[in-house]
């Protein structure tokens, strides 16, 4: 078998200030925020979105036992 050639590594991208602020938060908070943003993505432009608050509450309860 020919020796495996090492893949050139991409230089690490510098984190943006907002990424740093995000990473500074505790892991459960990061997870909660990610979950909330994911929920918001599809409904944020709608004027009426009655289910979003219950979904957020469910995420809070699920992630903060």
């Amino acid at each position, binding site marked *: 078998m020919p020796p495996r050639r090492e893949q050139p590594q991409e230089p690490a*991208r510098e*984190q*943006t*200030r*907002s*990424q740093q*602020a*995000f990473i*500074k*938060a*505790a892991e*459960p*908070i990061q997870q*909660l*925020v*990610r979950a*909330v*943003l*994911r929920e*918001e*993505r*599809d*409904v*944020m*432009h*709608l004027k009426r979105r009655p289910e*979003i*608050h*219950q979904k*957020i*509450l469910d995420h*809070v*309860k699920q*992630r*903060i*036992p």
Partner: protein
Amino acid sequence: MILEKLVLENFRQFKGKQEIVFSNVQSRNVTLVHAENGFGKTALLNALLWGFYGHDGLTDDLAHKERIIHEGVAARSRDPENTSASVRILFKHEGKKYTLTRSLSLLQQNLDARRTELALEVLQDGETFRERLPQQRLQAIMPDGISPFLFFNGERIDHLAMEENAAKVTDAIQQMLGLKLLQAAIDDLSHQNVRGKLRTELRDCTSEEKAVLLDEQADVDQKITDATDKRKVRQDNLVAIDAELEKVNAKLEANRAAAELQARRNALEKQKSDLAERLQAVTKRLGQMISDDAYTLFADDLVKRGREIVNRMRGEGKIPARVLNTFLQELLERGQCICARHLNKDTPEFKAVEQLLTIAGDQHFNNAVGALDNAIGVIEGAMQRTRDGVQEASRDRLKIREDMTVVDEAIEDIHQKLGSRDDEEVAKLETARRDWQLKRDECIGEIGKLDGKLNELNARREELRQEIQRMADNEADAKRAQRRLDAVEESVKMLQEVLRLEIEDLRPVLNKEIDDHFKKIIDRGYWAELNEDFKLTIKKSVALEAIEGSHGSPLEIDVALSTGQRQVTSLVFIASLVSLARRRAEIPTILRGLSGSEYPMVMDSPFGQLSLQFREGVAKWIPSLAPQVIIFASSTQYEGPVSDVLKQSRRIGKRYYLCYHGPRLAATAKPELKLDGNKLEQYVEAEEEFTQIIEVN
């Protein structure tokens, strides 16, 4: 989002099935549709808007919005249920292909043309599925808040990017750069249905004392929401008042009897706003100085007394001590002096050394006095610096206030002069201006009051939060409820910080982008400035002698732009935003969807009101900024610099022209279209009116 294809069927004057395939090649990203006025340019723009947003998306300049189906087809129909108009749009967005179809039957048009049928199919990884909530999905892909910036009539966008539309501009920026998502998450996490509900849960399982605090916190939250809502209304009012003031100012500038004084007033008002900014900065500096070092000003007596004590002790030879007590103690314990005599107890030698202990010093005391001496010196220095600094800042404040009074008096003088002019028009405008100015002052006062109230409420909220957090709860349920509430609070704070940093980092980038492109097209020493509230202004430098009574560095003043210049500014703003949104998609973010996206620019008659020089600039630069550009232009708009630049840059990837069939041709329209030396027939005499889309090969 990149548009692939538009298929029309019986939509307005487009009889039967017709289509346009848009160019999606990056280096040839322009799709050009030639059309004389009245042939259907606006209808084409509206076909796209109707497809995405239905009846609500149609532009105000489209006549008879309720008549979507081709009039001849509708009139001849004997089966209204099966006679219809439809628009199909094929587009790509974030790696997926979409086909949207909106249709309206004649039966439904006769009942209510607003209620249309919409279907959205998505092709992903070789599989097609139908979106369950198509309009919701379309809103997520291209929110209606940004559509006026992407699909527009070029002749009517001159005010789009200007100050009076700041709220719309801010919203579009937030949406296109993906920041809206953060704001929505902050709003919903802070909502009474989330935070309030968690607080109720906590209240139900906590002590009476804590329950009282929780109730107060809920009350404070409600007051914050109310005050924030009120503030938003006042802010919107302020924007509207500013727009009215702007109109009156423009009329005064255009009036020969008032123009000179109005120009002076504009310069003075700019001067006043600069002075107000300086006053704010000096006051802030003074506040900082007082909070950091003002104690030194009250330490005068203490410093004097400290200095006296140190000097007295030094005079008495107590400091620095000539002999240390630790040294004498050591001699007595060893029983021998440094002169070699024995120090036996009760001997005169022993007693003599023991006596010395009463005047000997302590090393720690020595050190402490040295430190005190040093500290007194530092405080004396700081006291002098603080005194000088406070005096200087106070002098500056006084001077700025005096300057402001002078400027105020000059403005009042202009008001009196204009208000007493015999010219009725001027007097009337001046009265209107004063009325709007008073309303503006009132509005600013109310906003200031609300800001003060919000500051107090937020401070109280934070106090309550800390107090509630400190109160111990033994019950496991209460602890859990508290943890959840804390997590929500922390998430909101973190998101607010992320949003603040994103805006702070993006604004200068967008500002630079706009300014660079603006300078390329309008070469007059003007520059574009996007302020902290995302208000776009165009500025220029004015030499000192141009403004009577002014002194200091050259003044930067807002430029009163012509309609064409405003149109170019709006175009540059939109293209820069689209360009940044495209690049923003490459910037890593905390979550997919926080990034911006690609958007097309669809422009109906973008060259109409522009001078030849601006036409050239727009044709040259806009296609290099946006990922996809679709232009509807008449032959008079296209011929000359636009045609030359687009040919030279080889940007045109697809090209069509609209051929009008009808009984009469408008006097301004030509029956033939001349393109690159070829003559194309663009008018066909016919009894029935309709428009045909023909590709130019």
